[in-house]
């Protein structure tokens, strides 16, 4: 059953981070990319025993470093200072990305400009000529992690949906996203689906979502 939460507003980014954290299977090796998804780390519980991977070469990444704990040699993928947890390990970049492509990483969570119902992801380039393209590890993560989750707002600043029938921005990966977590709802997407399955709504009903999104939606039957 799709769970509708129409009696409240949309999720804040922090609430959304908590929803995603709850859905990450215990014992997973997880990459939280850069930007908003890094908030998810704050909501993972110790008994989940999730090990965080950062693509600049570390497993067992701990929380942000402050004050005297800041070490210029120890940063996350966003180049912000972090800490190491017991059991941490360091490795070079070729190994770090082999962990993704080789199918060893369980989950990654990425931001996005657009996601299509077939799981296509666009998150690296607006396609505008004046913008300097920068891809980082997004394409490697998109095709490498066993499960690719997206964390984003459902609508852009101009109100246009970011979950779309097909991406108009340049692609990061083809058919790679399995789940889209947004402030207004959670969706299952992927290749071969006739519709995106709505797992939950926030601040809108399923009918509201169907009216505002231009891709086919189906209710979850569990």
């Amino acid at each position, binding site marked *: 059953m799709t769970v509708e939460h129409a009696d409240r507003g949309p999720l804040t980014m922090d609430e959304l981070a908590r929803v995603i954290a709850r859905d990450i299977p215990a014992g997973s090796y997880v990459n939280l990319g850069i930007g908003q998804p890094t908030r998810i780390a704050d909501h993972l519980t110790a008994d989940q025993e999730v090990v965080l991977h*950062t*693509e*600049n*070469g*570390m497993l067992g990444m701990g929380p942000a*470093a*402050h004050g005297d704990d*800041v*070490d*210029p*040699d*120890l*940063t996350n993928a*966003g*180049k*912000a*200072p972090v800490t*190491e947890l017991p059991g941490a390990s*360091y*490795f*070079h*970049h*070729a190994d*770090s*990305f*082999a962990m*993704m*492509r080789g199918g060893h990483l369980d989950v990654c969570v990425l931001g996005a400009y657009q996601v299509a119902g077939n799981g296509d992801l666009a998150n690296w*380039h607006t396609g505008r000529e*004046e*913008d*300097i*393209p*920068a*891809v*980082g*590890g*997004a*394409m*490697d993560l998109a*095709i*490498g992690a066993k499960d690719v989750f997206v964390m984003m707002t459902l609508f852009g600043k101009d109100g246009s949906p970011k979950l779309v029938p097909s991406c108009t921005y*340049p*692609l*990061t*990966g*083809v058919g790679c996203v399995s789940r889209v977590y947004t402030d207004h709802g959670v969706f299952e997407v992927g290749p071969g689906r006739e519709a995106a399955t709505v797992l939950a709504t926030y601040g809108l009903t399923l009918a509201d979502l169907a009216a505002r999104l231009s891709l086919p939606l189906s209710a979850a039957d569990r």
Partner: protein
Amino acid sequence: MARTAVLDTVDEAVAGIEDGSTVLVGGFGLAGMPFDLIDALIRQGARDLTIVSNNAGNGDVGLAALLQAGRVRKVLCSFPRQSDSYVFDGLYRSGEIELEVVPQGNLAERMRAAGAGIGAFFCPTAVGTPLAEGKETRVIDGREYVLEYPIKGDYALISAHTADRLGNVVYRKTARNFGPVMAAAATTTIVQVSNVVETGTLDPEAVVTPSIYVDRVVAVEQRHYTVQGAR
């Protein structure tokens, strides 16, 4: 005499880098950035360089200073655009520098391939995206791959923690990043370290870059700098 030269100054360490060279520059942001070797390269004066590095410079230091000095023709990197990449941004927008954007893992694996003598490899990254346009593809076991070629350097400039006099190298934390891959991928590998120790001091089980990949070593003072986002 050991083949690896342990030099007294960074200026000796970068001697002979020719105009037009391809230089692999270690570091991820500022972590592992070989600041002293880059400053020496600016003094040395080589021009028309192709730089391979994850980023295209931060602030006014390191790689950004080399770019600002007008020595770089082309940059291969994964993530040029950052909050403090204004030097690169200006050169790019005015058409004074060429950019090839490479997915981060492909950047690493293409250098790994160069160091390992691999002629090319099929990689699933970037299939169906603009970064695979014009490249050969092949379906293997039902999955599509893109043919990627090695990136070989004439020189690698790397920052590490400790080297012994034979050239064995260990790194520190995430500053390791591209170091080991670049060390193998360059004809001449130049490593700046905080400490040079006597051969036999490093635990052989803990050596990360074996001496065979290292040509020149120079000790530098540890540099203190501010980390982006530190508070």
